[in-house]
């Protein structure tokens, strides 16, 4: 895979880190969800996301068999990398906030991931194309789950409705980060790893998101695709962009220091 490592690595790490960081956030709800049945459901979604991250990281290990252990072993990649080496969108590293934010962020991400996986089914890198078919089946539950929650919260009035509207606003402000392009994307397209860069997903995503929000009267909160791909606020410390290029917020640093706390106490030990 020499020569292909750069863009392939970028694509796989973007996928893995999105799932890893969101799965970690989901797992923070375990034992604290609004009620017991939902606690169980979200804990499964967290496991799906973390398992998917592991699948992508193993693909990376297989693609780069000669890379040093720290750059290919899934556990070492998970627990030892610093924030600058993470490629997730900033949207996913934000703290969980309330239940409305958790639901809206998840649905926004799941709609994006659905489009991304459909595109990756046509990847010229066969192991990736084969893996996404399996992952898409589990992701489907996330979509159904998120959709059902959005509808229920949207139908309610009073506090639920107010929280939902605030959550939609906050998630839309960070949405451009999902479609952020980096120099590797062009190479990935040229190498046939992805049919198109992430920016190409902005228009279909905005349409899908509007369709979800229309029945509850919040479709107008979705930014137009041209704003999604050319956000003026850029990658300042608070803005939505930078994640795909390793520029993250302090929220990710805090997340990673918890994640690696035990492993880093002795990275040579068996745990």
């Amino acid at each position, binding site marked *: 895979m020499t020569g292909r490592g750069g863009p392939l690595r970028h694509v796989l790490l973007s996928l893995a880190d999105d799932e890893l960081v969101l799965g970690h956030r989901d797992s923070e709800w375990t034992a604290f969800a609004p009620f017991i049945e939902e606690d169980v459901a979200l804990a499964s979604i967290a496991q*799906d996301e973390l*398992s998917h991250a*592991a*699948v992508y990281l193993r693909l990376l290990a297989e693609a780069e068999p000669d890379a040093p252990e720290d750059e290919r072993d899934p556990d070492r990649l998970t627990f030892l990398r610093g924030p600058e080496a993470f490629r997730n969108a900033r949207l996913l590293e934000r703290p969980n906030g309330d239940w409305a934010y958790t639901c809206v962020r998840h649905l926004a991400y799941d709609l994006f991931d659905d489009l991304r996986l459909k595109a990756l089914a046509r990847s010229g890198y066969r192991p990736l194309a084969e893996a996404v078919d*399996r992952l898409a*089946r*589990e992701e*489907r539950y996330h979509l159904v789950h998120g959709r059902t929650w959005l509808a229920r919260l949207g139908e309610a009035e009073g506090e639920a409705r107010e929280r939902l509207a605030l959550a939609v606003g906050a998630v839309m402000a960070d949405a451009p980060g999902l479609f952020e392009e980096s120099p590797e994307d062009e190479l990935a397209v040229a190498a046939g790893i992805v049919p198109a860069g992430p920016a190409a997903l902005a228009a279909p995503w905005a349409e899908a998101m509007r369709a979800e929000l229309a029945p509850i009267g919040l479709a107008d909160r979705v930014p137009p695709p041209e704003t999604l791909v050319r956000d003026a606020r850029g990658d300042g410390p608070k803005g939505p962009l930078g994640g795909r290029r390793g520029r993250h917020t302090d929220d990710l640093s805090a997340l990673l220091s918890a994640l690696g706390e035990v492993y880093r106490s002795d990275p040579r030990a068996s745990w």
Partner: protein
Amino acid sequence: MLEVYEVFGQKASGEPHMHVGSVLAGDRELAYVLAKECFARREEYVSLWVVARRHVRKTSPEDAQMIPHTTDRRYRLGEGYRISVERWRALQARRRAEAAARDGAEP
């Protein structure tokens, strides 16, 4: 108007109620009365439940795709822990080696 009622039967005290079939009836009471002879005339049941099919949310072929987990779930299953046997053996070997080293070091 007749409608479909799903029938659940319990085969013995303490067992769960299992789905056994369905009947057509005009209301829940009649469904129950008819279900008794449709299902319990030969098979032995100790309890029957009926519920209108329209109250059942069924799995569509599309939903069916999302029900089984498709990624590795061995951490949930016994087979994810077969390695414990090797860990135990390795630990015993290490203890024996440490004991031998201690004995050897003694005058």
